[in-house]
């Protein structure tokens, strides 16, 4: 059994955003005081670590140690300037021609999982995600305006062979509609 402070660590690690201490208490079925004591222990453990515990307005979050800020800026910059690679460009072409599109539809067309790739396209401002009105748990992906203007077009319909490609994808989806659900992966972490 993990200690309470380690349990809190796992929750904060997962969330990547500030979490109210009250909510932590609720998740772990503990008293607020117990959570506060455990957070104190956790803070002590982080003293010499690469991660720190931040707290503000009754909320807590994990973040990288300030001593690492220079290295981290370097990593961020590298992420933005790196080549997208075939996988990234493939995903981008699908989003351009079939937007708005869900992650599982992208995965289905590519035949591989696109989780980490979508994340990268998002931080590079090439695609954006909006809520999916049909499914609360998933998002729809679209090209950004910046991307369209970078390509010199004002709307996706201006892409070459736009109609033809729409039709081909729909034909494929129709011919496979009997398989529906087989490739369904509802998790959408991006």
């Amino acid at each position, binding site marked *: 059994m993990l200690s309470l402070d380690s349990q809190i660590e796992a929750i904060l*690690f*997962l*969330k*990547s*955003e500030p979490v109210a201490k009250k909510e932590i208490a609720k998740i772990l079925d503990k008293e607020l005081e117990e959570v506060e004591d455990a957070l104190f222990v956790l803070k002590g453990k982080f003293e010499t670590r690469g991660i720190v515990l931040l707290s503000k307005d009754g909320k807590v979050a994990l973040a990288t140690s300030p001593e690492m800020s220079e290295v981290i800026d370097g990593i961020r910059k590298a992420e*933005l*300037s790196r*080549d*997208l690679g075939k996988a*990234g*460009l*493939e995903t*981008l*072409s*699908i989003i*351009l*021609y079939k937007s708005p599109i869900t992650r599982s539809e992208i995965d289905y*067309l*590519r*035949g591989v999982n696109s989780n980490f790739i979508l*994340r990268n396209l*998002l*931080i*590079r*401002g*090439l695609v*954006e995600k909006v809520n999916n009105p049909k499914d609360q748990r998933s998002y729809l992906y679209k090209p*950004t305006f*910046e*991307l369209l203007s*970078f*390509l*010199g*077009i004002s709307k996706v319909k201006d*892409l*070459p*062979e736009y109609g033809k*490609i729409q039709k*081909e*994808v729909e034909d*494929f989806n129709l*011919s496979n509609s009997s398989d529906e659900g087989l490739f369904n992966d509802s998790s959408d*972490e*991006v």
Partner: protein
Amino acid sequence: MAVEENYKVELEVFQGPLDLLLHLIEKRKLHICDVSLLRITDDYIEYLNRAEQFSIKNSVDFVLTASILMLIKSKSLLPTLDLTLEEEQSIDDLEKRLKEYQEIKRLSGYVKERFGKRVSFFRQPEKNVKPIFSPDKNITISFLNSLINSILNNLPKKIVTPKVIVEKVISLEKMIENLTDRVKESLSTSFKKFSGLQNEGFTKKDKINVVVSFLAMLELVKQGSIAVKQSCQFGDIEMENQNVDVPDYK
């Protein structure tokens, strides 16, 4: 009919010939060896013939395996029958594959008891990272267009079976014809050898019955294999199940 429904359901459960063979062997509490394979050959053929609707794309594999079992059976019924080196090898090979398959089944138990039970989760992406527009020199309309076209070209077609299997099936058909001839030949010599003899609990009549039934079985599977055909030039294979009864020669 209820009985047929049962068989259908049961067959759906098997992943392929190895799965079915292993099931039959384990059901009889046998170890994997050529003697065991001999003992389950009839069960196997019976299953194959009772299956009316099972996944057609797998039928080729099922029939290929049936042909190896028939070789084992032929050899045991007619010891005078000479097997080629390749045939001997395919028998050894089947045994080896079954053992490997059995091992995989055992290992998959470990995977099954762990999968999804105690999961480690990755960190959720940070929500407040501001995107910075950072295109890549390869982002051009013509390149993106060629990518989407190649994705569309590579989408899976419905049940495409590689050509190799077609060739194998054709040679299987030849092999069975060949085997039938060889069995017939060996049979005529065997008749001379065994005439008047009663050995190992077999009466002469029994022995003839066994061999004749076996020939009928060969014919049966042969028909099954002939029904495998290529329906179009891109190689989708269709296989019709033959609705014939299994010879009962127990």
